[in-house]
């Protein structure tokens, strides 16, 4: 290691320690609190109580199902749109970029108010948690769009499309045999980010009165504090697993079908 790099590391270590403490202390405190059984007793009682609650599993499965539906709907809309943008209308990229960041500037409360005023539809959509998929697709849009954009930018979409067409392939063959297999890393990244967002989303579900995982954590927090702490750690683990997946696929440590 060169002297310069040593110096850089020397300056970085205290900073890393401070940031590490900033993240670790609340988590350790939450962990300790989740193990508190009253007085000076510590044990897994809160965890045992949590896993024995049927409504918890129902809310967890609901959130997970909504995450999968969000991934599916989001990708079905965005893969063709972003692919087409790269292939035929690259000049519209600034417009796409702008639209993709709109969810950051419109507060969820405004979004949900607008949504309930605007969207009507069949009962299976508006009267069930499926309704949440609509705002969730919007919430996940910046991440899904960016992941796909980066993935497609790494490919020479136009040349690959022309090569496939020149060899006789139609659009179906092109999309399913060439484009999607080369976007696996981007698609996995988009999917894992969506899972992380949906599993932790509270505002929409709470306002629209659906009992998702985040809403359930909030409810438990009002009734059994140590169990809420245990659930919080559990949701952290889910998010972290998703993020680790994103990092691993993004760095190319997981090699998919030979495509980097």
């Amino acid at each position, binding site marked *: 290691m060169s002297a310069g790099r040593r110096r850089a590391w020397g300056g970085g270590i205290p900073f890393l320690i401070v940031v590490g403490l900033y993240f670790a202390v609340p988590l350790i405190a939450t962990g300790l609190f989740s193990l508190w059984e009253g007085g000076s007793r510590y044990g897994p009682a809160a965890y045992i109580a949590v896993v024995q609650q049927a409504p918890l599993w129902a809310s967890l499965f609901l959130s997970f199902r909504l995450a999968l539906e969000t991934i599916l709907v989001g990708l079905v809309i965005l893969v063709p749109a972003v692919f087409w943008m790269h292939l035929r209308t690259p000049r519209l990229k600034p417009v796409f970029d702008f639209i993709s960041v709109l969810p950051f500037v419109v507060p969820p409360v405004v979004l949900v108010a607008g949504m309930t005023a605007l969207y009507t539809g069949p009962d299976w959509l508006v009267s069930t948690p499926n309704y949440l998929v609509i705002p969730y697709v919007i919430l996940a849009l910046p991440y899904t769009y960016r992941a796909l954009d980066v993935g497609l930018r790494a*490919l*020479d979409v136009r*040349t*690959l499309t*022309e*090569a*496939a*067409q*020149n*060899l*006789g*392939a*139609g659009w179906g*063959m092109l999309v399913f*045999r*060439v484009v999607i*297999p*080369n976007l*696996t890393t981007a698609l996995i990244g988009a999917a894992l980010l969506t899972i992380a967002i949906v599993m932790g989303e509270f505002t929409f579900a709470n306002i629209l009165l659906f009992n998702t995982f985040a809403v359930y954590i909030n409810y438990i927090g009002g009734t059994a504090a140590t169990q809420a702490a245990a659930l919080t750690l559990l949701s952290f683990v889910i998010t972290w697993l998703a993020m680790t997946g994103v990092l691993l696929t993004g760095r190319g440590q997981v090699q*998919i*079908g*030979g*495509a*980097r």
Partner: protein
Amino acid sequence: MTHLRIEHVAKQYGGRTVLHDISLALPRGEFLSLLGPSGCGKTTLLRIVAGFELPDAGRLLLEERDITALAPRQRQMGMVFQAYSLFPNMTALDNVRFGLRVRQLDPAEQQRRAREMLDLVGLGDHMGKFPHQLSGGQQQRVALARALAIRPALLLLDEPLSALDAKVRVQLRDEIRRIQQDTGVTTIFVTHDQEEALSVSDRVVVMNQGRLAQVGDPSAIYAEPENIFVARFVGQAAEFSGRVLDGAAGIVEVMGRPVRAARARGLPEGASVHFLLRPESVRVAAAGEDASGLPGTVRARTFTGAHTRLEVGVGPDAVVLALVPAVEAEELPPGAAVHVSWAEDAARVLPAEPGLIGAARETQTVEPVA
């Protein structure tokens, strides 16, 4: 027999005409190069043949069948692109098999033909490798195998060598020619590199500003340029303004001196001409040994191996380049007074005013000789 006929094809982009009324005919098995500077329309013409662009006017006939409106995938043409175009998620073998899978050939036949093609391009040992495991040259070979595997009616090569380094480029260029001759596939090769075009083609089409500047076999393109653009674009030449002194005897005034030029014969007296000398047809002798030609002074001497390149100043702003055997050049150091001369038929003489020879070529159909 004509295999592909391009008839009066024209193309505009946003009001700018990139192809003006192009007509060409390719016999079966021909290797034709489209040569020209950037923006001359050569790639647009190739993309129209491939079906990626539609012409605004004109039509394309393949074996006398009109294919102008056919989608690229219906044209049965194999194309190798300038950019690396292998599918990154597939091995070399699967890339070559792709077009055969689209055609739903029997899997055993797909496998056999793909292997045969990879052997043909010398990559039989790399079938299982992914594109990122192959060098640029190897990737373009796989792309060539992939284009040939579908047994194309036409092989289209869009500057396939331009991303490769010089040594690989020459190697692959020669290999493309060998494979083309082995398979007999009619080929259109787009390049801006004159050496590439001249060394592999049966015929070369020089293009300029969306028009055909000249069509001919490589030696004719080099030795008999029909207009000043081709003369300047292909090879090196010293160029002078001149005036025909005697059309019957072939005498032209250059740098204020009468010089002999067989190719000036038949031109009207007093006509302004471009007078061109290729470096290899110029002889340089110490002053006094040879009184013909033009007097000058050696300005620079560059050793290039077997030959030495001499820059001879024959006027304040006029330089003649000469390639002379290295041994002779030893006697001609910079500063030496010399005479440059040439064989009477070696100098090219082209009329300066258009209309004297070979005018309006761009609208004529250029038929192959065979």
